[in-house]
């Protein structure tokens, strides 16, 4: 442990010129070869099969020719410096990008061998299968019960009130929130603490029994205690769901994921087992990042 830290701090002790030099000599851009990802981007029998994905915001190319497989019941973490395209890529997986007018997606994206971007594809059904949790907790300004029940209701998942009650209870239980809120299901969700809200959002997402849960920096607005609870939850969920999590905390990635993907300026630089990425990254950009030379 001390070894790494000394590396970092020794770095900090370098004279300024040398530090600056390093970036200038080797501009990050030049090192990446487009479409080439080191590590293990592919999987057999994947849940998602993504090939040559490119995403444009207007003219700007935010995702540059990325190919990746995401396996069943795996927890994959996306890491990378700010603005590298993690969120953009994640949002392709359930077509949340559709609502951004200027956003165009190219390439082949398949969920269980069906094209996600097929124009005939029903987005509503897709999103029911691929749930999402956002960076900032965003509960509806309704009661706790109604928040969780909303998805099952619009998808007709419950025939009776009691069915619905069951779904709500089990979702809240899975999200580890049941004991805290079971006495005030009618209270407004906006009165909860940030961590509770985020867990509520997770409960809401899993209430429609999705196959995949996408999480975009789910803990970045939470304090350490709340973060711990959410991470705990992710670990539990990983048994039955495929989870894709974007995080800016390498430690978090290390704690929760099986595989980690490192993004850099729109490229997918490296994907590998989490242990592998953090112990012996193959690509030098990955190494620079996880050793803290930037980010």
């Amino acid at each position, binding site marked *: 442990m001390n070894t790494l830290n000394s590396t970092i701090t020794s770095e900090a002790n370098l004279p300024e010129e040398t530090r600056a030099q390093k970036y200038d000599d080797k501009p990050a851009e030049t090192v990446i070869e487009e479409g080439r990802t080191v590590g293990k981007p592919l999987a057999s029998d994947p849940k998602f099969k993504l090939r040559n994905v490119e995403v444009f915001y207007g003219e700007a190319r935010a995702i540059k020719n990325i190919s990746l497989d995401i396996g069943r019941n795996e927890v994959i973490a996306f890491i990378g410096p700010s603005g590298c395209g993690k969120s953009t890529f994640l949002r392709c997986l359930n077509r949340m990008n559709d609502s951004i007018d200027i956003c165009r997606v190219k390439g082949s994206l398949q969920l269980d061998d069906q094209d996600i971007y097929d124009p005939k594809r029903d987005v509503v059904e897709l999103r029911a299968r691929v749930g999402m949790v956002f960076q900032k907790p965003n509960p509806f300004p309704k009661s706790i019960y109604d928040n969780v029940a909303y998805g099952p*209701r*619009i*998808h*007709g*998942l*419950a*025939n009776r009130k009691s069915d619905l009650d069951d779904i709500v209870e089990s979702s809240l239980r899975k999200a580890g929130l049941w004991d805290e809120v079971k006495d005030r299901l009618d209270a407004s969700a906006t009165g909860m603490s940030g961590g509770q809200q985020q867990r509520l959002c997770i409960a809401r997402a899993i209430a429609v029994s999705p196959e995949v849960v996408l999480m975009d920096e789910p803990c970045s607005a939470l304090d350490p205690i709340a973060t711990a609870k959410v991470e705990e939850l992710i670990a539990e969920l990983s048994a039955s769901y495929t989870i894709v999590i974007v995080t800016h905390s390498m430690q978090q990635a290390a704690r929760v994921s099986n595989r980690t993907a490192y993004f850099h300026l729109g490229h997918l630089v490296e994907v590998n087992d989490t242990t592998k990425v953090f112990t012996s990254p193959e690509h030098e950009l990955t190494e620079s990042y996880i050793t803290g030379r930037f980010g």
Partner: protein
Amino acid sequence: MQTANLLPLVLVLAVVAYGLAYMRSRAVAEPLGGIRNLKSLPFYYAARAALWSAIPALIVLALWASFEGKVIQNVVMGSLPADLAPQSEGQASLTLSQISNVAAGKLDPALVPEGIAGAAGLLDSLRAQSSQFKAILVLLITVLGAAFAWTRVMPHINARENVERTLRGIFFFCAAVAILTTIGIVFSVIFETVRFFGKVPISEFLFGTSWSPQTALRADQVGSDGAFGVIPLFTGTLMISAIALLVAVPIGLLSAVYLSEYATRPVRAVVKPLLEMLAGVPTVVYGFFAALTVAPFIRDVAELIGLEASSQSALAAGLVMGIMIIPFVSSLSDDVINAVPRALRDGSLALGATQSETMKNVIFPAALPGIMGGILLAASRAIGETMIVVMAAGLAANLTGNPLDSVTTVTVQIVTLLTGDQEFDSAKTLAAFALGMLLFIVTLILNVFALKIVRKYREQYD
């Protein structure tokens, strides 16, 4: 059955259709293992049934109601003996009115010709038949629509799509009302405008410097020329609006700044609605205030300093109008100033700027597009105002740059021309329409410009 009774009945039936379809969709879902196996929620099958039963029926009802009268009228008229047969359309409407007044018991049947009394009887029976038939037809359509929807409650059919598309259509139609209104406005002034330009050359209208409907009031009164130049009207409008804006913009802006930057929360909560009341006071009140208090005061002051002032002046009207439109500027500016991102404010304060410096140099320029919007709204209200101008600035179309003179505005002329002694077919009355058209075009151009400017600004910020 009366349309008034039929309408609720159709709605009730639609609700019934809703209920039935709802139950059926649940029944259909039952053997499949619950409603999750339907393509859409039962609600949507039900809503579709309600829409299908109500909408066609309502359309038929509307059509029937609009043609029923004509048809019955023709039959009744046809039944009249030859000597009573109406010669003209107006006659027809009168005869019909007479018949229906008799039928309604408001006219004594003994006092009208026998044929009319007979027709009244016919009218009664026809009306009864028609409404019976209408009721049967409409109810039939309602039931058929519901029945069709019932048969279409199938698990693989996406009723949600249907319902949402219908709703979208309705929404689109509502958005189109704005366009229809514009078309309506153009339609309601265009014919008279064209006729006006048949009498007065367009160039004279646009570039003439004298406006005097007095001299051309009636063909037999005076046939003088050059009386329809809009330039004095537009300069008058411009001058009064400019004075009003000179009052309202500084007062409104400064109030807004104070309210949003300095005032405490409770002060703001009280003062803002108070200021908004200024816009709610009827303009007649302002008119009296301007004419009886402000205008004489201005004249006295002007005479005191040796200026010649009319007892009606653009200044008086403009000042009072300015007070009236203060809230447009203050409330809207207050909103946009509050909407300026905190980051900009912090950025300036962190450099050691005082609040007023921050306001003047950073927030104000950033809020400018929104403030412009408020000012534009205030300006349009000023352009459209009539009562204050009539009372305080008069009706004399002087081409002058002196705010102490009496002037008049475009809208005032439109109102006086249309509500005063009208002269069909005379250029005078038609001029009102031409003025309306011109004003419409001018505001349209202003708005296109405003949109362009705002767009341009918006690109620059953020």
